């Protein structure tokens, strides 16, 4: 609990000048959306193997140390393993009866459950990898600018696109601050004798409330201060006729078109492979 920030690389952009880093954020977001859709659609092991190769290729393009990326995923994967155990043990389906390996009370392990859960969890790991890669290769500002540019047509429908993106950026900005806050609070509570992760569930929840309640309070205070500070700097969201200018100009180049075309091609291949593959 106390050293969370070491295990989370979420939202930590690494500016290493790689090809992926230099792509236009709009291209990256579009590629990301198509890849996520394709990865979510597939359900065959052959297609999952293709996903793995695809991820390896992206990893090579990103020039990020593999160790660093995996370290960021460690906490998530250990969480997923627990979920995997539950999925396997409580899996039920009509055709399962033929393939039972082990059975005790309500707990069952079947070949079908194993295969299904493995497929689901591999997919989730790949999706998590894609998300962390997007965050590691794109600064939040670029991400926000890209999202805003892509969502601009929705403004015609009266959706406050800029404000929504701003909320997203600020929420992400608060992640490291809140993590530091949790560390501070858990140390403060631990020195007063609160023991986390011990006792029955009720005691554990009570111990956690000593962190969650002050975390919410300080979070709300911060939000109020931040909105005051933003208004003091002439941020006037919602005021008619207000136009904000931008420091960064997004530039779509040949590499962006190439990346998008390759991505579409690979996603098409992936879906086709999933349709024809027997396993």
């Amino acid at each position, binding site marked *: 609990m106390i050293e969370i920030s070491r295990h989370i690389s979420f939202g930590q952009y690494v500016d290493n000048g790689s090809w992926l880093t230099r792509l236009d954020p709009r291209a990256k977001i579009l590629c990301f959306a198509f890849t996520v859709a394709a990865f979510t659609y597939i359900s065959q092991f052959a297609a999952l193997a293709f996903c793995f190769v695809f991820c390896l290729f992206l990893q090579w393009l990103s020039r990020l140390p593999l160790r660093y990326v995996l370290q960021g995923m460690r906490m998530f994967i250990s969480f997923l393993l627990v979920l995997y155990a539950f999925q396997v043990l409580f899996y039920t389906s009509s055709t399962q009866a033929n393939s039972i390996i082990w059975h005790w009370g309500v707990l069952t392990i079947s070949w079908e459950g194993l295969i299904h859960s493995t497929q689901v969890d591999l997919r989730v790991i790949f999706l998590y990898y894609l998300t962390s890669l997007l965050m590691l290769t794109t600064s939040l*500002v670029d991400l926000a600018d890209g999202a805003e540019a892509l969502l601009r047509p929705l403004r015609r429908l009266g959706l406050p696109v800029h404000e929504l993106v701003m909320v997203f950026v600020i929420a*992400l*900005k608060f992640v490291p601050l809140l993590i530091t806050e949790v560390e501070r609070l858990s140390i403060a509570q631990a020195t007063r004798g609160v023991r986390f992760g011990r006792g029955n569930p009720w005691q554990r929840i009570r111990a956690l409330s000593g962190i969650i309640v002050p975390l919410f309070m300080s979070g709300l205070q911060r939000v109020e201060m931040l909105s005051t500070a933003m208004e003091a700097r002439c941020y006037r969201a919602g005021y008619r006729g207000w136009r904000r200018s931008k420091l960064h100009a997004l530039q779509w180049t040949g590499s962006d078109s190439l990346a998008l075309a390759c991505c579409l091609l690979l996603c098409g291949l992936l879906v086709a492979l999933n349709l024809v593959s027997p396993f």
Partner: protein
Amino acid sequence: MIEVNNVTFRYSGEAEEGIAPALEEVTLRIGEGETIALIGHNGSGKSTLARLLAAILLPQRGSVIVDGLRTDAGGESLWQIRQSVGLVFQNPDDQLVANTVIDEIAFGPENLGLPRFEIEERVEEMLDLLDLRPYARHAVSDLSQGQKQRLAVAGVLAMRPRYLILDEPTTMIPGRTAEQLLETVRRLARERGITVLHITHHMYELVDFDRVIVMDRGHVLLDGTPAHVLRHREELERAGLGLPLITQLGQRLRARGWSQLPEVILTLDDLKAALCSLK
């Protein structure tokens, strides 16, 4: 020129609870190019006054007029006032909006709708002025507390305010760093003719300012040069403020018979000079 005319301000709900107003019948004139230290105990109304000057709060009675514009006039003049009165808060984490140093500096100018080349020019200028160039592309969360506070000042100065209000900016940063920050701010004020209002509760900080305003329970208790203010030892002590150590030392020496020493000594150099002149 900022004119504060008979201003009374009460936070909502305080009247019902019988709490005295945060500010009561305060009248002040703040001229151009002045460097002012605003000092007072917790709850003396310093921060409320700062927010009234920056048009974040509006007076319930009386008026605040910034360069001829009333803060409660509404409309476009509100934003003109907020552009010309820059406000830096105590905790930099509560006021930094963007994720990288460059984007943070650009936030205010972007809100003003300035053309891109001008935003770039201001960002470059601020990076040099506040020694932030080595961190230009860094994430804000990776900066030290002192660097964050410098960034907060840079973000506000990039809007080219005529008045800069610092609301206890030195509370969260270590002594040496705080001194450097104040020195930079004073230098900028001299070079660019910016009026500085530094809010603090550290008595030793006020000696380097042209003028000192002491607040106590919503009123202006004393207003004058540091030497003038420090002559009122009893009033200061009643307001919960002690004299700076060096001034106390001077007074003790006087009490022990060194009666030729001046009544108020502001700095160590003053004391040295006074002692040497006695020989």
